[in-house]
């Protein structure tokens, strides 16, 4: 009954078209209410005879029991278990690695539960989400990543704060279980901090940049405390490290695309009271026919990294090492469960500068520190690998990798690595 009055009041403030529309909608709502009322009456009428047909219980002496409640509303909240729905997604990924053969001066254990990565991921509030990845080794625990991502910032910006893998190239951002190999390329081991890489506490700001049609461009700027084993070392608060990454992507066709990037990192050198700089270029080519995406795919990837590492020792003139390294790799999926891969890598490194895993070959003049740096030279390691991967399901894989490497000291490694990787729980999908 109030509808026409309300509509009139509103109509005075609204244009004629809106008012008539409002009236129509209210009329529709009234009709709907009448229909529902009729439905309720019909249902009540059906229930009444049914109740009348129920056999009447024999008369018994009045019992002091409460009358059956006529309150049909559901009382109380959800059970205690309902609170668990707010728990984060939890996942565990196991990585078991074995190695046989000669290691050529970079030994790894014969059998090792290399890593158990535990992930906790959940939305925090309407403005942000959080991701934690805790890596358990056989002996210790390491916070691999733990950061908040602000997803609702203005101007197309995205901010991350916490500990994270720096956006330097491709391999550095990749967790172990997403790598197409059992190990990491020589250039990562020699110049970018090995398995942990540039992984530090800091802030990351990114934005999708304007670009010509068909091209995706993203800019990422990061600031870290400046501590990453073998790459950066902060001895003062001002020794922060900075990483910049320009990421490009282009769809060549619906099945093929190319992804490319340029990276720069600068921080305090762990070998001198000076800077350490890294420059990187990366490119990845993907082919995956959409109609047969689960059976066939090919990925070719490569990264080139240049370093400018300052090294000095007490009383000596600082010297600048400029090592360079790269890898080229390809993976071809031949069936739903089988994948072949190959990788060629080459990397220079400063003589006696640490690598991860560590090179145990004796340095020239190892005991004479000053002479060691005075005769600073570059060594070159070269390696090649072939891989075969079997995937019983999406949640496990078995991989073997034959690796041959010739290290700068003249030692050669011929190793057969094998890996069992298995995951359980809800592990969030990784970005492209």
């Amino acid at each position, binding site marked *: 009954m109030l509808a026409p009055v309300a509509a009139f009041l509103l109509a005075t403030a609204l244009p004629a078209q*809106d008012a008539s*529309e409002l009236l*129509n*909608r209210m009329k529709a709502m009234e009709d709907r209410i009448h229909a529902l009322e009729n439905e309720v009456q019909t249902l009540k009428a059906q229930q009444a005879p049914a109740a009348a047909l129920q056999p009447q219980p024999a008369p018994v002496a009045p019992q002091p029991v409460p009358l059956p409640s006529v309150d049909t509303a559901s009382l109380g909240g959800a059970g205690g278990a309902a609170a668990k729905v707010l728990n984060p997604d939890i996942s565990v990924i196991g990585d078991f690695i074995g190695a046989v053969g000669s290691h050529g001066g970079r030994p790894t254990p014969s059998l090792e539960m290399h890593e158990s990565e535990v992930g906790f991921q959940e*939305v925090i509030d*309407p*403005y942000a*989400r959080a991701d934690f990845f805790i890596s358990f080794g056989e002996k210790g625990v390491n916070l691999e990543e733990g950061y908040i*991502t602000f*997803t*609702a*910032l203005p101007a*197309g*910006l*995205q901010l991350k704060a916490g500990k994270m893998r720096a956006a330097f190239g491709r391999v550095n951002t990749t967790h172990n279980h997403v790598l197409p190999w059992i190990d990491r390329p020589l250039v990562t081991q020699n110049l970018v901090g090995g398995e942990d890489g540039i992984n530090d506490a800091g802030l990351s700001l990114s*934005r*999708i940049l304007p670009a010509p049609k*068909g091209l*995706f461009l*993203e800019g990422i700027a990061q600031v870290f405390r400046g501590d990453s084993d073998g790459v950066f070392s902060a001895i003062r608060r001002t020794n922060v490290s900075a990483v910049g990454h320009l*990421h490009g*992507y*282009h*769809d060549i066709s*619906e099945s093929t*695309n190319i*992804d490319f990037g340029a990276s720069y990192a600068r921080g305090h050198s762990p070998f001198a009271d000076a800077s350490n700089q890294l420059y990187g270029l990366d490119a990845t080519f*993907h082919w*995956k026919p*959409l*109609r*047969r*995406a*689960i*059976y066939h795919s090919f990925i070719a990837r490569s990264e080139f990294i240049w370093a400018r590492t300052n090294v000095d020792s007490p009383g000596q003139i600082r010297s600048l090492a400029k090592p360079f390294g790269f890898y080229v790799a390809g993976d071809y999926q031949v069936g*739903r*469960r089988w994948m072949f891969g190959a990788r060629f890598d080459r990397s220079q490194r400063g003589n006696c500068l640490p690598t991860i895993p560590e090179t145990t070959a004796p340095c020239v003049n190892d005991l004479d520190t000053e002479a060691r740096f005075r005769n600073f030279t570059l060594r070159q390691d070269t390696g090649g690998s072939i891989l075969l991967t079997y995937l019983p*399901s*999406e*949640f496990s894989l078995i991989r073997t990798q034959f690796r041959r490497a010739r290290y700068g000291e003249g030692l050669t490694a011929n190793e057969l690595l094998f890996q069992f990787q298995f995951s*359980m729980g*809800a592990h*969030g*999908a*990784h*970005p*492209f």
Partner: protein
Amino acid sequence: MNYSFNSNFPWAPTERIPFNMKNLSVTRDRSTLVAISRVASATNRKVRQNMFKKKYCALATLLLAVIPLQAASKINVMTATEDIAALAREVGGDLVTAEAIAKGYQDPHFVEPKPSFLLKLQKADLLAVVGLQLEIGWLPPLITQSRNPRIQPNQPGYMDMSQYCQILEIPQGQVTRAMGDVHPLGNPHYWLNPDNGRRMAKALADKFGSIQPANAAQFAARYADFDKRLTEAEKGWDAKFAPYKGKKVITYHRSWPNFCERFGLVVADYVEPKPGIPPTPAHTLDLINLMKREGIKLILVEPYFDLRTPNSIASKVDGQVLVLMPSVGGNKEITNYFQLFDYDINALINAFAKLK
């Protein structure tokens, strides 16, 4: 010496007024100076008035140009699959643009989260997803990286279509991966029942109406029209398919429970031993025996699965493999929701007729 009036606002339309002092026979006479100043101030006033008029005209034109643009702006809808996009076009008409991430001939469980999708998601007003963890392997990182607060989960621009539909095969009891790549929240291929299609269309029309209240009546009318056409089409499909009700089939993946329940087909078993697990020799042998025992001749396969195993099974039982389309866009003929059922029902009828 020439003086001219010049605006402080270089972007505003201005008028240059020549004011030649020599022509005014300049004297030291006070009255003449007053007269000059009066003429000058009158001229300035006129010019200022003219300028304001022009400014307001420009502003009004600008407003007039902007208002219709805003009113006519389309709702930018991104969807996980082509089916939802097709339904969005049905009820949205010219007032929405709808684009799907996964193609109709692509396995919707496995889509690459390409950065090019981010550019589209960044501008979306609405993201409508299938839900029930169908897109769990690829959509969450795209949503997070989209930098679009509107389409984040549980925000007004995020729609989980499964919330509006009848869901089958909701696992009871303990769910483990020993059951294969099982969907713990229920089977996500629910759009293959027109009743669910109708529910999705209604939900989309309501959502569009809430985004653009001015056009709510139009969306409601378009939905009413869609509902009517779908009801008519269903009558036709039911009549055509009536002779085949109760027929048993084998399907590759568990993509068809809603379709089969609606049109009366019985799924006897699957080519996959468990969801997401490729066929194994032992299960294939069991399947051949089952088909021989029960006289099942038809194997339904989605366009993204390999046909070798189904063909080999079919050859052993003198049966047939039929590639049935689970989504709009599965092939070039299927461009809308009606054509999806037209195609599948005709293909099934033809296949059954051949097998007689």
